[in-house]
């Protein structure tokens, strides 16, 4: 009394669960991309909390930024945001290579460009951070300014490390048959780029 049609067949001689295990390996390949999208969603809420407080404080204040404080210079951050956008463009070019049939050939130079520009942006942000012309505790504007830029800098460092890891793994050939780590790193980096632009617009263009 067999009813084997209810059970997926399996090749003789293999472990009975081998087929399930193979299928899981294939399906988990796209998991890192989904996971990164969720992480980015979470990060977006994280920054939205600070930007929300910024908006509330802006609405409550009579003068913004508070009267009598020196406003931070816009020069270095403007160069920075251009570099950041260039880095995002390099990442996009790398992603085009990732979807090309000759992958992973040709992707390394674009990843290198993205990483170099990312590091440049990080350095420019750090220079701007060091040159902020007011103290952290003078008021809510100053506190938010330091906090938001500081956290952005942290995320740039995180993104650069992620890019570096993916590049190292591409270099060793570990990712020859996989694109999802590169895709995941790209999603994170796009998030940092969008974040950098939003922060530039809110803090430097609109806020000073």
């Amino acid at each position: 009394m067999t009813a084997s049609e209810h059970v997926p067949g399996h090749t003789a001689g293999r472990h009975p669960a081998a087929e399930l295990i193979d299928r899981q390996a294939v399906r988990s390949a796209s998991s890192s991309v989904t996971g990164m999208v969720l992480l980015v969603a979470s990060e977006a809420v994280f920054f939205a909390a600070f930007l929300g407080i910024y908006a509330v404080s802006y609405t409550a204040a009579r003068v913004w930024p508070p009267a009598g404080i020196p406003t931070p210079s816009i020069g270095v951050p403007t160069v920075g945001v251009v570099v950041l956008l260039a880095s995002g463009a390099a990442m996009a070019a790398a992603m085009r290579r990732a979807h090309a049939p000759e992958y992973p050939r040709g992707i390394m130079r674009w990843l290198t460009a993205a990483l170099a520009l990312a590091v440049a942006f990080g350095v420019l942000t750090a220079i701007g951070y060091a040159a902020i012309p007011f103290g952290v505790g003078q008021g809510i504007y100053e506190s938010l300014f330091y906090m938001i830029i500081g956290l952005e800098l942290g995320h740039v460092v995180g993104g650069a490390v992620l890019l570096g890891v993916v590049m190292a793994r591409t270099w060793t050939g570990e990712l020859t048959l996989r694109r999802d780590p590169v895709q995941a790193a790209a999603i994170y980096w796009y998030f940092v780029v969008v974040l950098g632009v939003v922060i530039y617009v809110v803090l430097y263009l609109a806020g000073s």
Partner: protein
Amino acid sequence: MTTTGVLARPAAPRPRPARILDWLTTTDHKKIGIMYLVNSFTFFAFAGALAMLMRTQLAQPGNTVLSPQAFNEDFTMHGTIMIFLVILPLLQGFGNYFVPLQIGALDMAFPRVNAASFWLLPVGGLTIVAGYLTHGGAAAAGWTNYVPLSLQEGTGEDLWILGLLIVGTSSLLGAINFIVTVLRLRAPGMSMSRVPIFTWATTTTSVLIVLAVPSLTAGLLMLLSDRHLGTVFFDPSHGGSVANYLNTFWFFGHPEVYMLIMGAWGVVSEIVPVFSRKPLYGYRFVILALMLIMALSFTVWGHHMYTTGLVNDLFFSVTTELISVPTGLLVLAWLFTLWKGKIRFEPPMLFALGMIAMFVIGGIDGVWMASPAADFSIHDTYFVVSHIHYVLIGGSLFGIFAAMYYWFPKMTGRMLNRKLGIWQFWLLIISFNVTFFPQHFLGLMGMPRRVATYPVSSGWGMLNLIETISAYVITVSMLVGLWNILTTLRKPRNAPADPWGGNSLEWATVSPPPPHNFDALPEIRSERPVRDLRLAISAAAKAAGPEEAAGPEEAVGPGGAAPEAAQ
């Protein structure tokens, strides 16, 4: 291999018994799930002991068992641990064990991340508890940790913040893992409209975690930098505002209470159909209700702030009343599932029914407090304490015990003692009500929460004494449960694959499951694949003749061991 073989003992050899190193280094979702449970029940015992200290202090007016400072530390630690290190991780522990099984997966999507999210928990928990070792004692500003009080606390407060950041990271990693697992690793045929409700509930909980925990993280970082880096986020004299903390905390805090209850709803939605021998009434509506609650829970945080004058009370009152509609839908779904069912009063079912009854009481309290007019008079009184315990013990913890009795045979291969389970249930439900129901009256009489003692003239002494005596009975019921678990673990592994006549895929593998979970999966054509399989087997047996029918029925029927003869 025959169909019955799916439910019988595996052909593959059993894994060797796990050694300590296996547990420390494992990435198996089942072992990690068990570690979640053991870790959280340990913290549960600690936080429960703190609760008993507080109840002892409150037994009489003017009592001096605890100093006011120690009392403040104790209720802070009790609340923090119960919420962040007990209820949520217990539900995540069951989720860890059963979500991959219920969707027919081999493991979680990111097994190593899964191990990391577990190990962060005891680290974060011990960081919080380590506050007791510092000079100023543990954090004592309550689990909500309001400013400015939390700005004035000592080193214990910093450990509290750091520990919570670690625990939050653990929850976030776990939540991402759950969502990706459910989205990516479902077995063929397991469409989202066939996924068991417990898995659905774990998924909606995880979405809440992903979108709400970062708000808490932001609040904690601001608190930490206000304390040590000289920022002024919460300092009104420099343009900051206490509202900045309240909003970031409660934007997390209200979805948080749904994180703590959705898993228990999921458990009850699994157990009630199985022990009523009926499909869950309105399976799709239950999913819809979960999704509505998930979305609405982001719109109600202001109801914690009615009395501050900072929020639009009317708006938050309406959204809060609104969220009770899908919640009521869930309760109706369980009641209609019971209606005309063949109900079996096994321990899991008793706890599930207890959960429904107690949760309804807690839920109705919530509807009252959603009215600002009522809330202004009961805000920060014992009425609120009663409400939170009705939903967290009566709701979440009853659901967790239901899950414990329901899934223990699957996790360990051993059936918990039925009689002790029934004893634990009745002891708990009676003592729980005697302890927490009078707190409604104390709240209406004006007894504020978080006070270390109260005067004789208040007239609150009698009810408090009754509550304290009854709280000791709760401890006894917990010890009965612990005794049940410890004695059962010494018994031989004889639990059948499917002791209850279950519906979902975890019952289609042996108890406990092998490391790879399934040797083979049954075909999935509805949200109750194991029941489909059972029916197919008994139909085939009937067709084969009456004398053969007995074998396969026994192999998969409720309570029946899986005899080798069935193959």
